[in-house]
């Protein structure tokens, strides 16, 4: 990480940086991507299925943050997937890594500059809803921002969106509908629910999990919320799917390790990837 990753770059300078990053990416692409994808831990493999792939390392993109997490490749993969031009982020940025919220969401504005208006996001999450079980997939219908921060704090870059963006339909209803239909068609069981976003990196205590459930959360995780706020700010349509890697019921909580999360994410991966590929052709 560089010092710039910890602080907010504001105003014209921020816009200039976003545009420079977008310009660099555009130079390397023949086609403009239509759909961007931010894939959670272990799901970056979808990038390997992209045809005619152009790969751009984050470290080569001007002003782009660089991932600190082992196993996050840290590159964009652009090309064709299920008949559409996509841009897959292999590796994402988390608030708990120490990045400023404006850096966590930097790629979203770069996508916007590239002309992308649809974004598909996945994550690994703990299940708060007693009707879920580990291994379930959940399409996110809404979120609760419990990260303690907001990526839009600071001077508003009017170029991208309004000072006070609406969040009444942060997760696009037509994309949710499409996802439910495709899941049914493919025989994939799919839950619906509210994602509670926390900062991490510590997992939650039992009391915190009970609290989040009482507040209306169905799943809890350490990503997605900042990106979705920024995507809504700049008018992008969002689809997000959680991979329920563990059950997080406060009253009967067992110790959890990241290794367990990764293991379950791997088991569920084929179903999630199949679902995403079935959705892509229908995204408009």
């Amino acid at each position, binding site marked *: *990480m560089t010092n710039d990753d910890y602080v907010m770059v504001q105003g014209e300078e921020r816009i200039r940086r976003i545009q420079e990053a977008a310009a660099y990416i555009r130079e390397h692409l023949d086609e403009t991507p239509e759909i961007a994808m931010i894939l959670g831990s272990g799901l970056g493999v979808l990038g390997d299925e992209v045809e005619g792939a152009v790969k751009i390392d984050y470290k080569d993109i001007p002003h782009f943050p660089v991932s*600190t*997490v082992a196993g996050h490749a840290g590159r964009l993969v652009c090309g064709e997937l299920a008949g559409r031009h996509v841009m897959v982020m292999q590796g994402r940025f988390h*608030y*708990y*890594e*120490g990045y400023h919220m404006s850096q966590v969401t930097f790629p979203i504005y770069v996508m916007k500059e590239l002309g992308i208006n649809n974004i598909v996001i996945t994550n690994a999450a703990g299940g708060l809803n007693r009707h879920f079980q580990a291994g379930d997939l959940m399409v996110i219908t809404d979120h609760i921002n419990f*990260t*303690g*921060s907001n990526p839009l704090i600071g001077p508003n870059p009017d170029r991208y969106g309004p000072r006070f963006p609406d969040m009444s339909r942060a997760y696009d209803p037509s994309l949710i509908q499409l996802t439910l239909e495709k899941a049914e068609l493919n025989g994939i069981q799919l839950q619906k629910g509210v994602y509670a976003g926390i*900062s*991490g*990196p*510590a*997992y*939650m*205590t*039992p*009391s*915190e999990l*009970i*609290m989040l459930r*009482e*507040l209306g959360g169905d799943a809890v995780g350490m990503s997605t919320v900042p990106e979705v706020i920024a995507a809504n700010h700049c008018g992008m349509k969002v689809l997000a799917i959680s991979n329920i890697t563990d059950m997080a019921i406060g009253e009967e*909580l*067992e*110790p*959890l*390790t*990241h290794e367990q*999360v990764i293991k379950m994410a791997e088991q569920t991966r084929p179903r999630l990837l199949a679902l995403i590929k079935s959705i892509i052709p229908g995204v408009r």
Partner: protein
Amino acid sequence: MKKQVNEANNWISQQLKESPQIGLVLGSGLGVLAEEIEDQVVIHYRDIPYFPVSTVEGHAGKLVAGTLMGKKVLAMQGRFHFYEGYSMQEVTRPIRVMQELGIKQLIVTNAAGGINTNYRPGDLMLIRDHINMMFQNPLIGPNVDEWGVRFPDMSGAYSEELRQLAKKVADEQKMELREGVYIGVTGPSYETPAEIKMLRKLGADAVGMSTVPEVIVAGHAGMEVLGISCISNMAAGILPQPLSHEEVIETTEKVKNQFISLVKGILKNMKGE
């Protein structure tokens, strides 16, 4: 960050006669316990390299090492609070120093406001669990793998075994001991009655402005933690009078004998590995 902790740690190690086994963090008005430590080595925070310095009235600002109930302890008389303006890393630096000194068990104490309406000022409460409402986490930033894992488990942040031990000691001393959930807020303003109502709904029994960051870091460090709150006042909206820091200190004065005898009883029975 690791380098600063190491330097503080080296400096402290040079002053100590023996390696401490158990860490004690003493909250507002509870620092008196440190006076009972035998063969004391006293180290002022201001003398320790890279150690923050406490700014709060009633917080002495020193480490006291020595023997208490036959256990080698290192007590913090005076702690660092987020509301003083310290970073979360500074607030938790002493816990890292304890980790580097080899301390595996930690007793954290604090003064807290009672949210549970069955509580009374002067009650002692064993912390069963906490809720972090500080909207900060001391582990945000690159992970130092030597200290702990990237995503530490918090399912048993407060040791079941040490809680059982504390209950047994309280029984033996015929002392009433509550057990509940501590919710950590930043402060420094006390909560409004509406906020207290909300915190109660969220599952909290007591509220305070410390402990949570220290326990998260202790959990990351793999320490066994025992937390004890002294209910120094009832939180806003429960009783018809306003809150003051003086009231907090006054109540802790009254229960300090009970508190001291409880902690000493617990220390006596701890394995102290």
